């Protein structure tokens, strides 16, 4: 095992346990790991941006291919940074105006096409299906999302939820029934999302524990076990000191 990997395993294990110590209570070990995390990730982003933007997208094309037009976006980008010069801060608006303008323009037709037309297109389906040999049929198969029954359920779901988000109409009379249906559909969808999110969070935990188990191997020098002991010890000592302090006061 190369020495840098062994040291890495110890560092990674230590940092993982420091953050897990937050589960017991907020403590200096957690804060240390947390600030380290912010620092490292910001530093990482800066390096990557420098390498990709400055070197690959600006410097090389200009020097190697003479694409001087790329100085325009550089100038626009530089305008953004005038935010920090109070007197020239208004110049940054030009940059934002450009980005936001392009972004809004790009968004309008694409949103209509992908999220409005496409979704309408798929919701509008015939309620009866032509089955060869049987003629027009109403298919009841729940597991086939394209069956007639499911088409109706989807239609009801989409319409009632859309109606729930109507704000210029009072939800009374039949409207109340539709809005209530909408709420029930919403709750089912949230429930599904909840179940899936539980799965996601648990997967993250599984991933971290898998690493810790791997690092408890003797080829790494069992950092998981040693550092676990150390973290618990630190927490105990700190808890003690916190208890003694109020007594002194």
């Amino acid at each position, binding site marked *: 095992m190369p020495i840098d990997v062994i040291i890495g395993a110890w560092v990674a294990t230590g940092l993982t346990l420091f953050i897990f110590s937050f589960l017991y209570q907020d403590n200096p070990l957690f804060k240390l790991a947390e600030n380290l995390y912010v620092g490292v990730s910001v530093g990482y982003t800066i390096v*990557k941006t420098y390498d*990709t933007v400055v070197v690959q997208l600006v410097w090389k094309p200009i020097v190697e291919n003479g694409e001087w037009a790329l100085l325009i976006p550089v100038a626009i980008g530089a305008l953004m940074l005038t935010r920090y010069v109070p007197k020239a801060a208004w110049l940054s608006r030009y940059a934002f105006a450009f980005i936001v303008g392009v972004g809004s323009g790009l968004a309008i037709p694409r949103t209509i096409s992908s999220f409005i037309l*496409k979704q309408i297109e798929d919701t509008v389906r015939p309620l009866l299906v032509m089955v060869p040999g049987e003629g027009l049929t109403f298919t009841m198969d729940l597991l086939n999302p394209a069956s007639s029954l499911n088409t109706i359920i989807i239609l009801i779901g989409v319409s009632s939820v859309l109606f729930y988000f109507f704000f210029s109409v009072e939800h009374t009379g039949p409207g109340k029934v539709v809005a209530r249906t909408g709420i029930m559909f919403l709750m089912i969808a949230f429930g599904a*999302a909840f179940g*899936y999110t539980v799965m996601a969070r648990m997967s993250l935990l599984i991933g971290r524990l*898998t690493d810790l188990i791997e690092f408890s191997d003797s080829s790494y020098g069992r950092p998981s076990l040693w550092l676990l002991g150390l973290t618990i010890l630190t927490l105990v000592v700190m808890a003690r000191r916190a208890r003694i302090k109020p007594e002194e006061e």
Partner: protein
Amino acid sequence: MTFAERMLKIDRRIIFLVIGLCTLLPLLYPVGLPIKISPEVRGVYDYIESLPEGSVFLLSLDFDPASKPELYPQSISLLRHAFKKNLRVIAMTLWVSGTGMADQVVTQVAREMGKESGKDYVFLGWSPGGTAVIINMGQDLYGAFPADYNGRPTKGMPVLQGIVNLRDVNYAISLGAGNPGVEAWYVFGKDKYKFELAGGCTGVMAPGLYPLLRSGQINGLIGGLRGAAEYETLLGRKGKAIAGMDAQSATHLAIIVLVIICNVFYFSLRRQSAQQSRSGA
């Protein structure tokens, strides 16, 4: 304080401990329950199976270390499958903090399958701009990524032969942990450049992508660790996802039990207070 009240106000660290054990024990002593394949995942697998050798496969690893446990196993399986089918693989990422991880997984799987960078696959790395990168690739791939991750110029690379832009891609999969991710690849990519698209995503994102799946905007969806486990099963190669499934089963069951207990106590409390108010009146 009644028993139910006391139980509901139990120190949450005890619950933390229960969850920790439910995860740890199955990882140490796996059972290996069978995994059923869902049609969403099969859609992706079958499509890759149907691609002829030399087709262009684009894998965008749009996630960061926070989603590694879910999406890393997915990317390993997809890359293995693509390399096994001798597809030309273009890998990239739209998430800056995922760059190192993406490079690692691509290089590792390529080495394991005996593939050569530049000839059989290329890792383009990261480029800022999010959706702008997708549009730019759709117009001109070499403009968006003049060089690959290792700094070699992309123009003239054997693996990219005959590829001008995203229109020449046969199949693209975005493994997304958020935005930009699968949706962005549809709206700014497939919508205009018409390649076939599928998505892999974290469990948090998955329910939101079902409308796109239903309407055929994506032809398959690999959701979370479970999706990865299904793909590993389809490929017949056990990996981290299958290994994690037992732990996943245990924790899910633990949470369900917790929810049930919570509601049992809650209703017993409600009945008690109802009785009290009745006897008081």
